[in-house]
């Protein structure tokens, strides 16, 4: 009746031991438990995620936009400053300092920026913490401004510095996305000081910490010495949505 093969106990032990040894590659995961290796491994993992994110990013794809009835009320739009809520920018004397790989570096006033076509959009603002709100943003396309300043299209990044010493950077594909704005208004009003007056970023294809406020400097560059305030502490550098 039983037609299968008979072997002795010791032979069976050899077979099972060999099978057990075949699992040893799984132990490689233990490298994550070694303190010296943990940091570089996690950095590599995050780097891979960022690389994959840049591949997922489609320049022609627009972020969802929403009806006015979907807007989060203006007073329920969170104010997330990393340091001070109001760095007391002198709005009358404010200019945006442009430098780097551009044909026309120098100081740009808000009036100059506003000569570019205005764009308004209701888009989702997603915080890395997990919450999200839908806001109304007005401004000019960052791509239009990059054209105005004669940015080198071969440059890889647009970086910004802020009055509160915050700093950020965007990859060129995201910076030239049609929904990426230099934003000077929210909810139909000029930006309030707490929301980043007079100029902030509104990048609906990026996570919240990329939406820098109180801009003072904009630089077009290919090699970044620093990525961003949170990125340099271990957050994702790309974090595209």
């Amino acid at each position, binding site marked *: 009746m039983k037609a299968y093969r008979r072997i002795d106990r010791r032979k069976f032990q050899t077979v099972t031991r060999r099978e057990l040894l075949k*699992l040893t590659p*799984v132990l490689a995961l233990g490298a994550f438990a070694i303190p010296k290796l943990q940091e570089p491994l*996690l950095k*590599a*993992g995050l780097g891979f*995620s960022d690389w994959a*994110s840049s591949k997922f990013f489609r320049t022609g794809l627009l972020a969802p936009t929403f009806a006015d009835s979907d807007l989060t009320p203006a007073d329920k739009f969170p104010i997330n400053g990393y340091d001070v809520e109001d760095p007391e920018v002198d709005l009358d004397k404010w200019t945006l300092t442009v430098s780097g790989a551009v044909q026309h570096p120098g100081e740009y006033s808000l009036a100059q920026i506003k000569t570019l076509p205005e764009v308004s959009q209701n888009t989702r603002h997603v915080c890395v913490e997990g919450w999200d709100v839908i806001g109304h943003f007005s401004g000019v396309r960052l791509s239009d401004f990059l054209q105005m300043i004669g940015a080198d299209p071969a440059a890889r990044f647009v970086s910004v510095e802020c009055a509160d010493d915050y700093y950020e950077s965007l990859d060129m594909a995201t910076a030239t996305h049609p929904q990426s704005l230099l934003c000077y208004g929210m909810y139909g009003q000029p930006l309030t000081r707490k929301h980043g007056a007079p100029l902030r970023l509104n990048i609906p294809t990026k996570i919240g910490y990329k939406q820098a406020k109180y801009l003072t400097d904009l630089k077009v560059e290919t090699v970044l010495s620093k990525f961003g305030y949170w990125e340099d502490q271990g957050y994702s550098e790309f974090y595209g949505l």
Partner: protein
Amino acid sequence: MQMGGHDFSRAGTQRDRQATMASRALEIEDLKTGEVAEAVYEHPLIVRVCHWINAVALFVMVGSGLQIFRAFPSFGAKIPQKDLLNWPKSLAIGGWLGGALQWHLTFMWIYIGSGLLYVGYQLFSGNYRQVLFTKRDLPGVWPMAQHYFFFGPKPPLKEAYNPLQKHAYTSAIALGILSVLTGFAIWKPVQFSWLAWLMGGFHLARLWHFLIMWAMLAFVFGHLVMVILHGWNNFVSMLTGWKKDPQYPSSG
């Protein structure tokens, strides 16, 4: 089906082959005592490798996920914020939000990779028949439930897994797939906006992702209880592939 480098002959009818998928069976003879035991090769190598990689990856994904959740432990508005659950930091991985995201965004690739390898292998090898809950398992559900929960008689085991086991494993695989899909919906709500839309929007996708984790943890709890109840031979089979005294007809 020819598997691995061993050359153990096997016998059995076509019906048995479909019913058990236990492609290799042995009789083990103790030369001293003359006692004979049975053993079947129940878990192919790739299944075992994926199982243990997935166990580690799931542990890290849950631990780091709970640390991420700590940054905003709510599913409502940010203003005013009503916390749902303040998960203790000591039971989370990563130490802070940025650290937890590093773990989560690293191990998700390991989790996805082992998941794809597992599902792909099961489909192409045909081994999925051992695991997948199908219509023909339905009649066995109630007798098995009676045995587990109401001390009813134990229905005779006809194959590697009983109907409830298959149901549990099939559900766990479905939860695994859903955890990845909901994860992508909240990680990339623009590039995969259709995924978020399918789940009822970004907000609900985040809630589903959270609930799926708890469902998965419920499976893991039940799984561990059953592993303890079913003893050593059963546990060892996920390490060596071979199960001694299988308690089900192995090949003939």
